[in-house]
């Protein structure tokens, strides 16, 4: 009986999320030109990576001990997980705008968890652009790498993509807690975080000095998003700061970090003080 109700609730929640999303898409479609340009802008935004990748492939033999195909693999895993993040969690870093517009208070008066409402409150058309670029890069990488694809590797790849999305979501969620108290200041740092993840996440961290690469592995877990999973897939472990076992556990890092970030978020949400008079 309890199981049946739980199943019904999950189905109901999924259907509600679907309805909310389609409502938001319809709202965006109101501005058709902006919609089309949004997709284009998304493609181009990530295509700066493509530009660099093209330069890299055509002129240089590799980067930091990685072949050009390997670097493309890192970039494409990162972009794939970013696209998954974009579909599922992207609005988390818009919390500062939601708070400032007073929308958060409307969310608090609805019988739905606030986090879910934040995540569903807008639909990002850019995500399709991200996905297109990610798939292109991935196919380029595959062509250049002579990898043998075992079933384990395929499963690991999927898990790593999801894990990477969860890490990005965890980091952005943790930052957005600050938006509940000082929304204006958080806006700057959100942009910086986005920027850092996308620039440093696309390249093998071996090219950076050890201290920095350590920062980006243990403080801001950028390495676990794409670099370490790609290391597992290609077997290139020099330059990574963690042993092979930990690199294999990258997807788990995503789950653990995300749960921790959600806890932090809920804790902060309970202490929300409201805005204005």
């Amino acid at each position: 009986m309890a199981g049946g109700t739980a199943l019904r609730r999950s189905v109901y929640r999924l259907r509600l999320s679907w309805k909310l999303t389609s409502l938001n898409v319809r709202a965006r479609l109101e501005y058709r030109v902006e919609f089309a340009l949004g997709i284009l802008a998304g493609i181009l935004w990530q295509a700066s990576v493509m530009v660099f990748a093209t330069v890299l492939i055509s002129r240089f033999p590799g980067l930091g001990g990685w072949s050009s195909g390997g670097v493309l693999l890192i970039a494409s895993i990162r972009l794939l997980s970013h696209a998954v993040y974009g579909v599922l969690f992207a609005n988390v870093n818009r919390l500062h705008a939601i708070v400032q517009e007073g929308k958060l208070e409307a969310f608090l008066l609805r019988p739905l968890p606030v986090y879910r409402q934040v995540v569903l409150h807008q639909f990002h058309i850019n995500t399709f652009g991200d996905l297109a670029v990610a798939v292109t890069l991935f196919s380029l990488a595959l062509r250049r790498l002579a990898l043998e694809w075992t079933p384990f590797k395929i499963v690991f790849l999927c898990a790593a993509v999801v894990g990477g999305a969860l890490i990005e979501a965890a980091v952005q969620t943790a930052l957005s807690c600050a938006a509940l108290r000082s929304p204006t200041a958080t806006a700057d740092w959100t942009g910086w975080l986005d920027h850092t993840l996308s620039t440093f996440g696309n390249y093998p961290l071996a090219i950076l000095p050890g201290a920095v690469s350590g920062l980006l592995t243990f403080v801001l877990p950028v390495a676990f998003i794409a670099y370490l999973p790609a290391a597992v897939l290609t077997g290139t472990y020099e330059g990574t700061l963690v042993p092979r076992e930990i690199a294999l556990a990258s997807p788990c890092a995503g789950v653990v970090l995300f749960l921790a970030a959600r806890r932090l978020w809920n804790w902060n949400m309970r202490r929300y003080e409201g805005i204005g008079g």
Partner: protein
Amino acid sequence: MNSKSVPVIAERLTKTFRVAHRSAGFMGGVRAIFRPTWEYKPVVRGVSLSVQPGELVALLGPNGAGKSTTIKMLTGIVAPTTGSVRLCGLDPHRNREENARNIGAVFGQRSQLWWDLPARDSLVMLRDIFEVPAGEYRERLRQFDDMLELSRFWDTRVRHLSLGQRVRCDLAAALLHDPAVLFLDEPTIGMDVLVKEQVREFLRHQVAEDGKAVLLTTHDMKEVEHLAERIILINDGEEMFEGGVAALRSRFGATWKVHVTLSDAVGHPRLAHARIVAREGARVTFGPRPEASAPLGHALKEIINAYPVSDVSTEEDSLEDIMRTYLGGAAAARQSASGGSRMAAR
């Protein structure tokens, strides 16, 4: 008393905000990062109130008095520093999701509707969010349409609606799931007269026929006169007054005048509730007795029974006059007191 029977009950609510103190200029900003100092601002200092089903209570007070914060505590958006709130028996802050079905809210300045889509799409979405059965939804929408004429504009995009149209849609959205309690924050601000009257009629219906408990904040005194049975006056975070409109009048020394035209010259019987203030031939003006301020209704009855009256008109201090006098007095008192006592708490 079974707390479930009283939709809203709040006891000794206080709210103190801790604000980072930041002096002006660049150095101030730098100092704030490295050595932050905190200020404690008490915004609500002990407000207790309750709203019964089928009752409309008006929350009055100057800006910054703590009205919005009180409402936020009542709706569960913010947790009180001390004190307790029960909404239909639940703690609105702790049981937020469950309690959301008991609350409807309209904040005059901010709409909860989706901006780029027709209003009706928002209502359908809210129906799904609140899990309103289809039959009930249709019936309620028909009712709202009857009273607020929504069908004229519910297919227009919300961003193209006028203020009056948008607030009417917001009202429908707030009441779609039949909540027990309705919170209204300045709902008729900026509306034209006809729409205001329509909304007031609608609210009266919700209170009287549907038995909802309604808490209304407003600056529009006419609205208070027309709708509110009870008034709670908040100033500086404290409750200054609670009671009916008549009690408010007598408490703040409101006066009235009755102008009559006598059809016959008569003697002057002594009245209990009124006395003659002026007379000019057949025109006599009565005012309240200084010792016992009687309500206008009683005095009027007495005058008409005692005198042969061919014409009568009454004049009463409007609530606006009362508020103006009260607030002016309070501001003056605060100015004279601020010389010594008030310092920001460290």
